[in-house]
């Protein structure tokens, strides 16, 4: 009996939905936290099965190809580890009274809805469905960002909501335009929204139409990616929401949004008459990178600091895909994966730190390596990794992106290198105080579980030195798809 892709796909979508329903009904936060973990774990296992599935058949609504399978696996994996982290994090929030059991039930249900939404976006072969998935994930995260109902949290959620909704609107408009461009060629109906069909026929589309469409899609989904100057919601949403949500936002949602942009980039690239999507993405990427790098300096809130770092890295990734070519695409994909793992790991660490020290203010956290060696050094490792220093995975991807860029377009490498350097300076500027020096604040040992964080950093470390050939072959294949 051959295993067809749809089974795994369906599982990946159904498990979160069922779990969300169950979690909405289930009282008691311990049980729901476990169920949340279980559901996320099961989704992860289900997603692994997609590797072995037959990729040739593409449904009209759902499909699995080489591009999305890794995104799905990464997504469900980080979703799973975050749920583990969340379990130990949320208990503390309940103790301190920042959350009530009712809200917690809501939180867990929303978590699964969000995962389901992202999985839907990733598995969709239908650009409308993809849009729906991303919107679902966005709206649930908006709710979760505001879950603390503090002044700041509500404002962050409101800001996220307004900017996110506009993004939603723009993306939808872009989607409609793509459909309109497709109609004269592929005919009316569902076919006009099936991505595989669109790619196959893209060369016949009216270039003017898909040009406009791409601008709307780039800005619409780019808002979700957090590209400057569309980024405004991102730092606040990261800073004011629960830390597991910050981890998922940075690690996953940004990726999913960028994935959507990539899908359309491929369509656009298949049309010879259309504007090259590369320069647009390169510009937005560089602007985000340099802007976020400078913004890192004056940050006072530790979560906002790393949120800006996410903008910076999204800039690098967007830049890499904008450059295109086998090496840069490979670097971009790798960077995406590495950034997800590293940044969510960092947020795990930051979450623990904030809970232990009772503050998110950078100035009030000092000498972590003295009081909490494991946590402190993990944070150091995280920052080292995210700053693009070896022997971690981000180094390899930055190596590939920067070196290939310089060989092709030396002038573009200048702002790229400048941004990376400025950001590195800022990160270490803050790290010097956070991790070293005379410690301040609470030095009681923490009983939180550091496993997810260590697993993430371990993976990033391994990837920085050794990439399994299966993964590499796959990455290469995808890099070719991306063109």
């Amino acid at each position: 009996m051959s295993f067809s892709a749809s089974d795994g796909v369906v599982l990946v979508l159904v498990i979160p939905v069922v779990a969300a329903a169950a979690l909405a009904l289930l009282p008691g936060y311990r049980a729901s936290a476990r169920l949340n973990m279980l559901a996320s774990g099961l989704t992860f296992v289900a997603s692994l099965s997609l590797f072995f599935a037959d990729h040739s058949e593409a449904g009209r609504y759902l499909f699995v190809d080489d591009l999305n399978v890794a995104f799905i696996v990464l997504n469900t994996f980080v979703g799973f580890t975050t749920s583990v982290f969340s379990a130990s994090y949320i208990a503390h929030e309940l103790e301190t009274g920042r959350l009530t059991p009712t809200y917690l039930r809501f939180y867990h249900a929303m978590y699964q809805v969000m995962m389901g939404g992202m999985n839907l976006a990733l598995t969709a072969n239908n650009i409308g469905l993809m849009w729906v998935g991303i919107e679902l994930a966005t709206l649930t995260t908006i709710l979760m960002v505001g879950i603390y109902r503090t002044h700041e949290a509500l404002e962050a959620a409101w800001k996220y909501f307004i900017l996110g909704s506009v993004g939603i609107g723009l993306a939808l408009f872009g989607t409609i335009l793509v459909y309109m461009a497709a109609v004269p060629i592929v005919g009316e109906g569902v076919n006009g929204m099936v991505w595989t069909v669109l790619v196959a026929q893209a060369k016949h589309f009216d270039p003017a139409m898909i040009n406009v469409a791409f601008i709307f899609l780039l800005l619409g989904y780019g808002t979700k990616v957090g590209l400057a100057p569309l980024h405004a919601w991102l730092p606040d949403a990261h800073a004011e929401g629960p830390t597991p949500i910050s981890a998922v936002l940075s690690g996953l949602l940004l990726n999913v949004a960028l994935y959507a942009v990539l899908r359309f980039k491929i369509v656009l690239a298949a049309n010879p008459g259309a504007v090259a999507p590369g320069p647009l993405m390169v510009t937005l990427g560089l602007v985000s990178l340099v802007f976020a790098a400078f913004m890192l300096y004056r940050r006072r809130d530790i979560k906002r600091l790393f949120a800006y770092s996410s903008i910076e890295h999204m800039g690098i990734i967007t830049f890499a895909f904008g450059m295109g070519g086998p090496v840069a695409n490979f670097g971009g994909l790798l960077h995406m994966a590495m950034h997800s793992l590293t940044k969510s790991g960092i947020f795990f660490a930051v979450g623990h730190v904030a809970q232990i020290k009772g503050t998110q203010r950078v100035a009030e956290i000092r000498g972590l390596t003295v009081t909490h060696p494991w946590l402190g050094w993990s944070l150091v490792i995280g920052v080292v990794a995210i700053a693009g220093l070896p022997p971690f995975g981000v180094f390899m991807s930055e190596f590939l992106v920067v070196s290939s860029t310089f060989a092709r377009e030396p002038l573009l490498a200048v702002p790229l290198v400048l941004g990376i350097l400025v950001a590195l300076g800022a990160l270490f500027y803050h790290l010097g105080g956070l991790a070293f020096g005379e410690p301040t604040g609470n030095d009681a040992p923490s009983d939180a579980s550091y496993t997810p964080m260590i697993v993430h950093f371990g993976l990033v470390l391994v990837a920085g030195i050794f990439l399994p050939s299966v993964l590499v072959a796959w990455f290469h294949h995808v890099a070719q798809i991306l063109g």
Partner: protein
Amino acid sequence: MSVVAFLMLCAAALLGVALLAMAASHARAATALVYGASLAICIVGTALSIAALTGRAGAATRLILPLGVPWIGAHFAIDSLSAFFLAVVNIGGAAASLYGLGYGTHEDEPHRVLPFFPAFLAGMNLVVLADDAFSYLLSWEFMSLASWALVIAHHRDAENRRAGFVYLIMASVGTLALLLAFGLLAGPDGHYDFEAIRLGARAPLTSALVLVLVLIGAGSKAGLVPLHAWLPLAHPAAPSHVSALMSGVMTKVAIYAFIRIVFDLAGALPWWSGALLLAVGSLSAVLGVLQALMQDDTKRLLACSTIENIGIIFIGLGLALAFRADGVAAAAALAMTAALLHVLNHSFFKSLLFFGAGAVLTATGDRNMDRLGGLIHRMPVTSFLFLAGCMAISALPPLNGFVSEWLTFQAVLQSPDLPQWALKVMVPAAGGLLALAAALAGAAFVKTFGITFLGRPRSTEAANAKEVDRFSLSAMTLLALLCLIAGIVPGFIMDAVAPITRNLAGAALPLQSKLPWLTIVPSFESGSSYNGLLIFLFIAFSSLLAVWAIHRFASHAIRRAPAWDCGFPDPSPATQYSGSGFAQPIRRVFLTRTPATREQLSMPAPGDMRAARFTLTIADPLWDWLYQPFVSAVEIAALQLNKLQFLTIRRYLSLVFLSLVSLLLVLAIWS
């Protein structure tokens, strides 16, 4: 198994020790274990690399591991150049480990040093072994990172944290520059393997750009002016044996990087690249030593003197490049030999001096020489060995520092063979600056040794200092012996580096070790020669003769009495010359008109009993001119952009709106 594999095993073993140290750094035996293991591994590494250098190591010299960039793999290889530098790294590493066995026991927080020390050694080994761009940069930055961790090992001192910060930034600047250089060399398709890079053809402009980038990349790590600012901060901040490694060995790894990329990979370079190097090198030599002379902190002085010595090495390399570009292979070989010899020599005496400074630090808890003095009585062995180091670094015969500087001078004297006018003028000028640097180095180390070890103690700590442990002493003795041996029989080393110059400069010096009396003769045409062994014997003979004659024929009577001092009776130790006092005449000569030097004298009015106060501030003008603008620019940009964090939602929406409209406009106009 090939020698590369063995050396890789050594590096892996060092990494293993690092992991072990991480796990067990709080154990009592950890210090002895880590340094002991590092020592053993480094000794093996030294033996292997010397075997490889002298051609006793078999043929298989490449190793490809399925790591790193997937479609390339991780290449590791050893040739004569890397073997030479591996020897430098491992000898330095062995000495530092030996020293660490004793010095490390004084560490307050050993868990912040122990894991990173072997990791640092492993990093340096791997850099030299790496044979593709990715492995190379990975090891390079890993080395930087490990040393960064060591620089901030004493993290409670804000000064050290700042030093670590500046260091890391500069290291990253360097790495990114190298990354760009490799990007150019490897081309857009990513041929990162060194073998492929060597085969690739590139335009002269590309090669020149590579040279400039490597000069930034390797130069910032080596401490070339003007990229040196981090060095006097970071090197002294680390524990002393690590300072020794950073100054004595890591800067050499940077030199290796430079030689590897510029001489080996980049292909043919125009003559002006040599001129560029000469300029940078002689500037570093003079500014470095002047800066050193102005320091009162022994370790910082040593760090600044590293800048000088790197400058000397770069003068040699610049000459080699210029000679090679003009096809004067023999002279290129001479210049390169000089540079390589200085690499080795500097690693010996700089480590020795840092060890000595560390011993003083352990014994007195002070690095500021103005609070020391008279240590020669309390620490006789240390002071003797430190003196040997001072003599070596001041290029006094018969020690090793002189040999390499002598060779560099000989290379300078080959310059009439160069056709370019600019070089004809520059080379003698560089020679003059080199001579100036050598003379100033003598002054700097008279100051260091004189103020620290001679005279009377200026503090109770100095008065009660105790001689350090036997591990530290044996490490210093080892290095002092190496300084002497390298000074009196340099011919063997020159022969050992001959394969390198044959590969990279196209010629080699005549075989030295077979010459009568082990004289060194760089070229038979000129007939210039030097014999350290004979000079050593001569001096020994004539001083012994003098001593014998005096004791045979002259009075033996000796009487201890208070110092005469032109009749001033027993003044306080504070009347002795201080470090800055000693340097004052030279400062007046060379630095009077620089804006960075500020003297302030507050003299009380007559009748006022207040003590007069003299303050001297010496800033590095390059910091203000070169670094401060960058710092300010980043600060200003950060401040201005930071306003974007505090906009209203409406304004953010306006940003989205404007982006959309402008993109649509672009589309409307463009397509």
